[in-house]
């Protein structure tokens, strides 16, 4: 039918138009850094905090003239708290936006999803949050992690086990690489200190009703409960634990607990809980680089960002600082050069001094930093150092 032909010609024209669309040129005078973070979905709170920290770092660097005479430009893609989206976002950043380096992807599961893309396109990525040990031990030379692994966290905590007088511990973890890895690392560590492990319960990252899991934990006879998940879910857990009358002392791992947010949203239910963090903005002077830490806290406050987000925001800041330093060392904004340069960086980060050591199978090592770890307590509606 003639009309059908018309439709098809129209399609053809449309197709051609689309084909020539790529002409939308972008300003070529910036160095792009891809940011693959969860801005919506189950862990949106943390993803936004990290991205804000990244923005602060970018602005600070640009204010000082940028890198190699050009301004830094963050190209931010939302991975929607989903691994497939994380991989897809990385692909977009690399193929469409042609970024020479990435930072991401927050959760271990999303980072693991992105890793094959890094191998395929040979682009390095700085991992700022993910803590699964698998990330640096699977032979991917494009991974450079500034966050601690679950194993490092457990090791750092092992010094405190005695102080906490833990006899039997339960686990309530999110059911992905991060949570399961944390439970594994911590229970191995506890066993080596003669502590009994009780029951291990998992939860979906999107689950809001944790009463089934908590009811079982209530009856387990343990004195401590390790919780590994992100702040939005911890908020729900503390509320529900309280209303169930849970007796265990709660310790969160992973550093994404934003204690101030817990105080704000849980009130009294947050008191008496402990949190493992990688930055303690209430005592910046205790950081390895106090001035850097204090400056960051001030810059964050100045922008009116929520104070609670500092415990995560620093990750984005340190990540971008590291990348910028690498680009500078490399002398050009190209993936392979940046990758090589990352091995040479020495950055005074907020968490501590950042420089990468080799980890993983020989010949294909990833880079790993050994960061500082803090433990805080929420008492009387405030964050303090543990009073044990």
């Amino acid at each position, binding site marked *: *039918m003639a009309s059908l032909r018309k439709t098809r010609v129209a399609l053809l024209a449309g197709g051609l138009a689309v084909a020539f669309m790529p002409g939308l040129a972008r300003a070529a005078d910036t160095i792009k850094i891809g940011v693959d973070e969860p801005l919506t979905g189950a862990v949106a709170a943390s993803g936004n905090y990290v991205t804000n920290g990244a923005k602060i770092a970018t602005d600070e660097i640009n204010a000082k003239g940028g890198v190699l005479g050009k301004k830094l430009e963050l190209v931010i893609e939302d991975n929607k708290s989903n691994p497939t989206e994380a991989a897809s976002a990385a692909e977009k950043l690399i*193929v469409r936006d042609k970024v020479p380096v990435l930072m991401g992807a927050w959760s271990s599961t999303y980072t693991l999803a992105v890793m094959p893309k890094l191998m395929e396109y040979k682009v390095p990525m700085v991992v700022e949050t993910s803590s699964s040990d698998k990330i640096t031990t699977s032979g991917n030379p494009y991974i450079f992690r500034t966050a601690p692994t679950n194993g490092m966290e457990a090791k750092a905590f092992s010094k405190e086990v005695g102080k906490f007088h833990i006899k039997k511990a339960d686990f309530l973890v999110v*059911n992905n690489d991060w949570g399961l890895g944390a439970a594994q690392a911590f229970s191995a560590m506890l066993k080596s200190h003669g502590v009994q492990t009780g029951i291990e319960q998992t939860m979906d990252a999107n689950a809001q009703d944790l009463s089934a899991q908590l009811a079982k934990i209530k009856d387990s006879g343990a004195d401590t409960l390790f919780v590994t998940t992100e702040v939005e879910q911890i908020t729900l857990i503390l509320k529900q634990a309280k209303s169930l009358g849970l007796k265990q002392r709660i310790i969160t791992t992973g550093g994404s607990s934003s204690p101030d947010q817990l105080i704000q949203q849980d009130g009294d239910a947050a008191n008496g809980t402990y949190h493992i963090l990688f930055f303690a903005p209430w005592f910046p002077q205790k950081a390895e680089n106090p001035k850097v830490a204090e400056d960051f806290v001030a810059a964050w406050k100045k922008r009116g960002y929520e104070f609670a987000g500092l415990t995560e925001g620093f990750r984005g800041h340190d990540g971008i600082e590291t990348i910028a330093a690498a680009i500078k060392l490399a002398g050009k904004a190209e993936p392979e050069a940046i990758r090589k340069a990352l091995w040479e960086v020495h950055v005074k980060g907020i968490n501590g001094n950042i420089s990468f050591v080799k980890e993983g199978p020989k010949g294909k090592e990833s880079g790993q930093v050994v960061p500082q770890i803090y433990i805080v307590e929420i008492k009387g509606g405030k964050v303090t150092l543990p009073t044990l």
Partner: protein
Amino acid sequence: MRRWLGWLWVAFLVSVPLWMTDLYYLHVLIITGIFIIASMSLNLLLGYTGQLNLGQVGFFGIGAYTSALISLGFELKLTDNFALAVDPHPAWLGFVFGVILSGFAGWVVGRISFKIRGAYFVIVTISFAEVMRLVALNWVSLTQGPMALNNIPPFTVDIPGVWEAELYGKVPNYYIVLAVGVVSYIVIRRLVRSRLGRAMIALKENEPLATSVGIDVTRYLVLAAVVSAAMAGAAGSLYAHYVRIIDPDVFLFIYTVTMVIMVITGGKGTLAGPIVGGLIFGVVPELLRDTTRPEVQWIIYGGLMIAIVFFLPNGIVPAVHQWWRSRVSRAGVAVPLSEAP
């Protein structure tokens, strides 16, 4: 006459990778193509039998997971002593199994659902997709749950001595998707024009009448469901081996909604409808990427859907047909009737 036109169109599509050098746009076309295949499968049920299957993504996901698992190999613990271990197999075998398994699922859903109609059918189909999602999420030992099936092998060609390759690149995948797309189109076209197709349309137009004439309603609906599901499964398999990572969110209702929007805007019950709709909704988000946020885009799509239902209830393709016909008849030009379908 039209057949010639159709092949011209295919030739044009075949030529695209030769002049479209930007890999990213090729990527967009591949993803769009996969969704067009899925939309065509939905159109078969929705447009031709009038059954609104809102669980179509369930078949897509089954195809994806099956294909991925076959190509990755898996181990299924059936009892304490017995485990079913499957070695990794070539992706095309996964594709075949994906199509078969989703076709089977279509049969099951068809048999169950076609005892009930209308609103209840819709709800059952939605529930089916949701249950599949929750199964994929919780059956971690098989599907890896939220940790996703990663590193899915791409399609491979293994003709010893002639051609051995792993098809990672965008260009080979584009051709694979195009091939499956063309085959799917031909299958649907044949089906719709066959006796089976006429029976389905009779069902849609007037079910009691059709039944009274002796048409076995359930049998034809189930058949349509099987073909529709198998095609969706094929699309799912293509998706799995191109994107190379699958997680339970592949079963989300929003993907069914995307397919529904494509079919409805393009024109349900037409052959070209899902293609037009698919192109629009595959390409437009990319064009809008720089100017509008995703939420705003979706608001626009939702509004568009409502507008189409109100003003162009049959979709764009039929509306364009009508407009062209009215133009032609006004101008007094004789439209060659040899081009009638």
